[in-house]
């Protein structure tokens, strides 16, 4: 029963935040100079043409009516159409979300598999090879801008060795190998940055836990080293790591804009940028809400995992 109450409370709490955000995004878009009709008609715009587009898109209505109109459609499941390509926004999001999710999942996976073991090894044998590697990867990782790393990978791996594609996206449904090849370099780029932060956090958190009394007591009980490190230490060290993962996945979902653009991946990030630049109101409003929702889902998931790991704050 506790869990249901927890979910209900969290969902109810997020609704005002999302509504608030949608209003702010709606207003901000209208406040910023630049008329969507002008972008659509470009140099061939004529006064009648602009008026016709405004009528067609409902932009001639007062703002509050436009917002209520949008909310009405939203509640009935209609997210409106992309001003330029007339593609239903729902279709656009359905095409773009999997790309962003796959990119986020792959880079999260790669970074977890490298950062956690390396961070643990670094903490267990301080000053050892793993520790030096962790420090190096950590410092280099957070100092290298991801978009530069992307360009270097394209330059040396894609163009240099001609091994992996330098850009473009092959849908999973179409061809698995092609998909993984097209996602290889982009996820590697994001994973590097994420792994750097993760390895530093894991190492610091493990060092902190390994100095605790209950670890000394576990050793006094004569438990194998593996048991002490992974069952006793890592489970405690995982708590701050999970918090970090929650924050980082927020970045992966909305922030990986530039990596998406450098590798020409049709993800949510690049959609937000192009739509914002073209004043594509329905697309921007929908993507902002979706990214906001993903943030909320990630936060709830982090809290749940928190509870699972840390009995003291277990929920329900």
């Amino acid at each position, binding site marked *: 029963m506790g869990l249901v109450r927890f979910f209900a409370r969290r969902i109810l709490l997020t609704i005002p935040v999302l509504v608030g955000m949608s209003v702010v995004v709606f207003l901000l878009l209208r406040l910023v100079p630049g008329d969507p009709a002008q972008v659509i008609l470009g140099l061939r715009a004529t006064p009648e043409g602009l008026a016709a587009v405004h009528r067609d898109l409902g932009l001639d209505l007062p703002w509050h009516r436009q917002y209520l109109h949008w909310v009405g459609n939203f509640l009935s499941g209609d997210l409106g159409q992309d001003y330029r390509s007339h593609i239903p926004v729902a279709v656009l999001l359905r095409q773009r979300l999997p790309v962003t999710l796959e990119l986020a999942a792959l880079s999260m996976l790669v970074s977890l598999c490298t950062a956690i073991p390396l961070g643990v090894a670094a903490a267990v044998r301080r000053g050892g090879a793993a520790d030096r590697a962790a420090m190096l990867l950590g410092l280099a990782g957070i100092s290298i801008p991801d978009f530069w790393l992307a360009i270097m990978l394209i330059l040396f791996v894609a163009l240099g060795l001609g091994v992996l594609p330098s850009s473009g996206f092959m849908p999973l449904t179409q061809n698995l190998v092609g998909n993984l090849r097209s996602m290889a370099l982009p996820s590697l780029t994001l994973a590097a940055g994420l792994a750097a932060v993760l390895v530093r956090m894991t190492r610091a958190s493990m060092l902190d836990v390994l100095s605790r009394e209950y670890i000394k007591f576990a050793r*006094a009980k004569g438990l194998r080293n593996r048991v002490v490190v992974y069952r006793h230490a890592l489970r405690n060290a995982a708590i701050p790591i999970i918090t970090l993962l929650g924050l980082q996945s927020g970045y992966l979902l909305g922030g990986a804009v530039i990596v998406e653009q450098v590798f020409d991946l049709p993800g949510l990030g690049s959609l937000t940028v192009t739509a914002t630049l073209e004043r594509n109101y329905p697309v921007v409003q929908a993507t902002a809400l979706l990214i906001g929702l993903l943030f909320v889902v990630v936060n709830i998931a982090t809290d749940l995992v928190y509870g699972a790991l*840390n009995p003291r704050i277990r929920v329900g």
Partner: protein
Amino acid sequence: MSRLLEVSDLTTEFRSGPRVARVVDRVSFTLRPGEVLGLVGESGCGKSTTGFSIMRLLPPTARITGGAVRLDGDNLLTKSDEEMRQIRGGRIAMIFQDPMTSLNPVLTVGEQLVEVLREHRDMSRPDARAEAVRLLQEVGIPSPARRLDSYPHEFSGGMRQRMLIAIAIACTPQVLIADEPTTALDVTIQAQILRLLRQLNTEHRQTGILLITHDFAVVAQLCHRVVVMYAGEIVESGDVGEIFAEPKHPYTQALLGSLPSRGGERGALPAIEGLVPDPAAYPSGCRFHPRCRMAFEDCPVQHPSRIPVTPGHDAACLLYRR
């Protein structure tokens, strides 16, 4: 088999950069089965380090540089890490000082008990759980079956200390090292834990208990023999009765003097002036001489060796030269 645990000339040093602190300096004592030996001294005298040296559970900056620790004739210092690991928790177990921090907060109490049983007595999971319930009962925890799957934060300090004890005796160890087991508890709980330890001592006749404490009252209630440490050395050892009746070493006398006895007269308790010496720069000769009221010209020069004052009761003080 009369000598269960024989520590001879054990020396442990902490190295940090140029500084070398000889925290344990040629310490020797023996523990017989069924006996409770008190290792007593002010904090910082090296008694806890002695305990951890025996367990070979020292931090990276510390190293045992001399002596021998024979458990049942085996010299633990020559054991490999793996061999030592199997001994810990099995043949030698340890109880830590602060129950609040010694149990893993994210694992259930049952898990932390069962894992020791499965490790050393390779029992199956169900058998281990059953044994765990029995152990909790033995250390006086109410409705143990139900509490097995609770988490440490759901227990009081006293209960958690009983948990530590249960874990320690899980594999009926030959030697039980208790490092300040009651210091972190309030007085009423302290009494219960001491009663429990005494009860365990009477039931497990073959187990020897090394009780590390700074509290003579605890020594009085629990120990058969006592060893007094000062500045990394043993300054006096003997039967509890004798030591309490006729302490020989000025340091022991001072310690006992500052003990509020029930019947004693009012008035300020005498305190020992000065501070415990820095382990990297011990005073010359007898290390207690700067704070010793009975010190005379030889004390700063000559280093006293432990001389038997009466059979079974020796003291390391120049007053009792052979």
